[in-house]
């Protein structure tokens, strides 16, 4: 009986760990997936957009804490930080679209992927030059409180991350499904050649998609800063590639799929390290992804139309 309780506790503990990790992957890969869905582009700059968003969040949070820490309640500062950061970071998304992707709209999409990669490198180096090599500490926007309920440890930050990520995803889903803009995006992802002829301008939809993706990434960045408060200019690289995996695994143009794949990635990483020796984590985790794709070659919610390369 003791052993069973132990096991249940252990599994629940790791479930919470995985939910937190998965939340980040999910929110970041949604941004990736939207661009991929609407424009059929690999947005290799997305990881670095996330990184820049985190740094913007860092700047805003530091500023707001310095200005208002005494007389405004903590949650209000948090909300204000999120809103301002989202606004600023979405312009980064627009900038990347206009500077890196728009000139290449008729080019092979792999070329656009390269410009994305290069913009990412410029962001990384730019931040390194501006802020120096020392890693920065993201300020705490709320005091962490640890809970221990029935042997399961978690903090208020973990709970907040999971809830806010879910809320963001629901909000985005509603936006895509219910609003006119969302409909335009869905249409665009269905056929990006015919829809512009129907009066939906790709030059508005594309930046909007990038802006939403960047905004989401920046919120993820602030949450990331709360959970893992060490900032480094190269922090987005691996996350970006993982988001790339999750976005395609989820299926083209599927927000649901990307979110699910993001959570799945988090679960695979956490549980593989739990069950197997953790030195083998990457080996087994990516083998599982390979297996999934062998048996579900279109990802989870992939649409049944040709994904031929425009070359």
């Amino acid at each position, binding site marked *: 009986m003791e052993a069973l309780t*132990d096991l249940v506790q*252990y599994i629940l*503990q*790791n479930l919470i*760990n*995985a939910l*937190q*990790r998965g939340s980040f992957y999910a929110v970041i890969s949604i941004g990736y997936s939207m661009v991929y869905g609407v424009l059929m582009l690999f947005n290799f700059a997305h990881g670095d957009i996330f990184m820049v968003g985190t740094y913007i969040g860092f700047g805003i949070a530091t500023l707001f804490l310095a200005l208002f820490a005494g007389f405004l309640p903590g949650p209000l500062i948090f909300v204000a930080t999120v809103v301002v950061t989202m606004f600023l970071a979405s312009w980064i998304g627009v900038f990347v679209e206009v500077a890196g992707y728009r000139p290449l709209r008729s080019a092979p999409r792999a070329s656009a992927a390269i410009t994305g990669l290069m913009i990412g490198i410029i962001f990384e*180096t730019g931040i*390194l030059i501006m802020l*120096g*090599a*020392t*890693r920065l*500490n993201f300020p705490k926007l709320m005091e*962490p409180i*640890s809970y*221990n309920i029935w042997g399961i*440890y*978690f*903090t208020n930050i973990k709970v907040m991350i999971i809830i806010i990520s879910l809320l963001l995803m629901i909000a985005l889903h509603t936006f895509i499904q219910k609003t006119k803009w969302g409909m335009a995006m869905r249409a665009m992802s269905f056929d990006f050649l015919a829809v512009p002829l129907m009066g939906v301008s790709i030059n508005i939809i594309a930046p909007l998609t990038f802006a939403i993706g960047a905004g989401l990434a920046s919120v993820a960045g602030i949450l*990331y800063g709360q*959970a*893992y*408060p*060490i900032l*480094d*200019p*190269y*922090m987005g*690289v*691996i996350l970006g590639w993982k988001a790339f995996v999750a976005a395609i695994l989820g299926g083209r143009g599927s927000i649901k799929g990307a979110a699910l794949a993001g959570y799945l990635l988090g679960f695979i*990483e*956490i*549980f593989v*390290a*739990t069950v197997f020796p*953790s*030195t083998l*984590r*990457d080996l087994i985790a990516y083998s599982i992804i390979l297996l999934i794709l062998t048996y579900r070659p279109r990802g989870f919610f992939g649409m049944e139309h040709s994904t031929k390369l425009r070359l």
Partner: protein
Amino acid sequence: MRRITCLVVMAMVFAMIFSPSAFSARKTVIKIGINAPLTGDNPKVGESSKHAALLWLEDIEKAGGLEVGGKKYEVELVIEDNEYKAESAVKANTKMITQDDVLLIVGPQSSSQAVPAGEVANKYKTTMISPWSTNPNTTMDRPYVFRGCFLDPFQGPVVANFITDEFGFKKAAVLYDVAADYPKGLAEVFKGAWEKKHGAGSITAFESFTTKDTDFSSQLTKIVKSGADVLFVPQYYSEVPLIVNQAKDLGWKGPIVGSDSWGSGPTFELCGEACKGLFFSTHYAAAGAKGATKAFIDRYTSSFGYTPNDVGALTWDALQLAQKAIQNAGKISGRIGKDRTAVRDALAKIKNFAGITGNMTFTEEGDPIKCAVIVKFNDKGETEFFKSSCP
């Protein structure tokens, strides 16, 4: 019109060729190469090496050059970025040796670059001092390669002994980066040393992650559950704060002990409360330092705005060693091959060099015999001397 353009172009070319820089005789300049990761995964290491080198150069320039055999020579630093990549470190070394004609190279700092770069330095018979590389392979069978710090096989047992003596624990856990040279090597050495002391099975969890990971929750959950008394984390300053805080959040109660890599950056500033009172082994203790060490720390802090980390201090020592070796070599003949060998021989002969990170004498392999220091983060976040352990 065309003729005029032609004439103007010709005139400009001639003006350029016979400009003041032309016809100046070559001077004998002592060049010191610095091979450091200014970009890549660990730019802080490169920045610290560069800063320490600049301070050293400042000293030399103040003295009007480096005096060798009664003659003052101008000194020039050649700083090359190795991008934290092995092949780039090799290219940088080749360039500095064959193109810039450096007399001696300081760096690369990390073993993953120092091992291949050492091969190049040795091939071209150029002295290389790696201030921070703890992998035995860096200097093994390479007469021209030296290092400025102790080795993993020494540090691992030091930490294991310290934990046993200080806390009396029997069960330990290790969390390390499987994809990086240094943490993996040290983790394995520690495991061996600990198991030799406490028998097989005394390492209850030997968990790993991959470079750039930020979430260690599943590994830490495993470690907490394994019933270990103490956790050994041979990681860099960018990971330690995350590991310490996450461990606390997941219900870890015991102490966490680290290695010299904790001193690679402002660990305490990033970590906060949770790191108070933690121990790690390192090369020198910044708090309460005396004499030359204190002078260096003060100067560095006032110049660059932060307390020098281990890398900075070790690079400083390596440069002092280099300076001493060059001076001991007696004279600069101007023939670079001969001078390089002379410097190497002089360096190998240095005995009891009093560096700011301790006294050094080189073994046959070019490794210094040097003490390790166990330090503790005190309440102010300074690294306070606790104990030293000598071979």
